[in-house]
């Protein structure tokens, strides 16, 4: 179970333990935490929703993409859903590789892919309102109805 969606607080060490290996010299983690201020606006809390079964499949798919590109890597990803308070952990990505360069690159790849293809949505709740975050400005369209198969690092 290296890829999980959970309603509970994420135990970071538990995610890391899944990728520790005698063959690994480097483990990187990315921990997404709930930030209070975003572009000058104060968030009270967040609410994450997922299409859970598909989200797990898509996380597994990202794991396979990473394994293809970095064959000696081991990946584990846990994403939390439900109500999250400021400083709570929303996502943990842990990746081990023999050498450090790959561990950074692969981790970066994982978070960018999560933000592209995993069906999870975030609602920001402020004092004076709330909004589902995503693409409200409609700057991105999917003419084919699905995301392109590409790699994005921003």
């Amino acid at each position, binding site marked *: 179970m290296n890829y999980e969606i959970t309603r509970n607080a994420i135990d970071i060490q538990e995610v890391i333990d899944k990728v520790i290996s005698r063959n690994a010299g480097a483990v990187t983690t990315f921990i997404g935490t709930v930030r209070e201020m975003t572009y000058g606006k104060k968030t009270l809390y967040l609410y994450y929703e997922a299409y859970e079964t598909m989200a797990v499949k898509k996380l597994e798919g990202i794991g396979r993409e990473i394994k293809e590109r970095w064959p000696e890597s081991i990946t584990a990803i846990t*994403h939390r859903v439900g109500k999250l308070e400021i400083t709570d952990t*929303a996502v943990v990505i842990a990746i081990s590789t023999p050498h450090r360069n790959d561990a950074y690159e692969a981790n970066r790849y994982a978070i960018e892919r999560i933000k592209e293809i995993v069906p*999870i949505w975030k609602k920001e709740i402020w004092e004076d309102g709330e909004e589902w975050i995503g693409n409200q400005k409609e700057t991105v369209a999917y003419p084919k109805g699905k995301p392109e198969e590409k790699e994005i690092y921003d």
Partner: protein
Amino acid sequence: MIKVLFFAHLKDSIGADSITLQMSGESISSLKKAISEQYKVDSLHTVMAAVNEEFADESTILADGDIVALIPPVSGG
């Protein structure tokens, strides 16, 4: 019958997390058009679709028993 799942702002707009439609043999494109008209939501061109938990093209033809998810731009992470 086709079951259609809604998430995030789409669930709010439509007022339900799923509906069931008689649209076997039709395309996703037609399904989106039907939902857009019936529920007065006009932003479905930014919405992806998945059939049975895999992303699917607009031209995909639906079969009886398929579960379609309409997936607004994701914002996890």
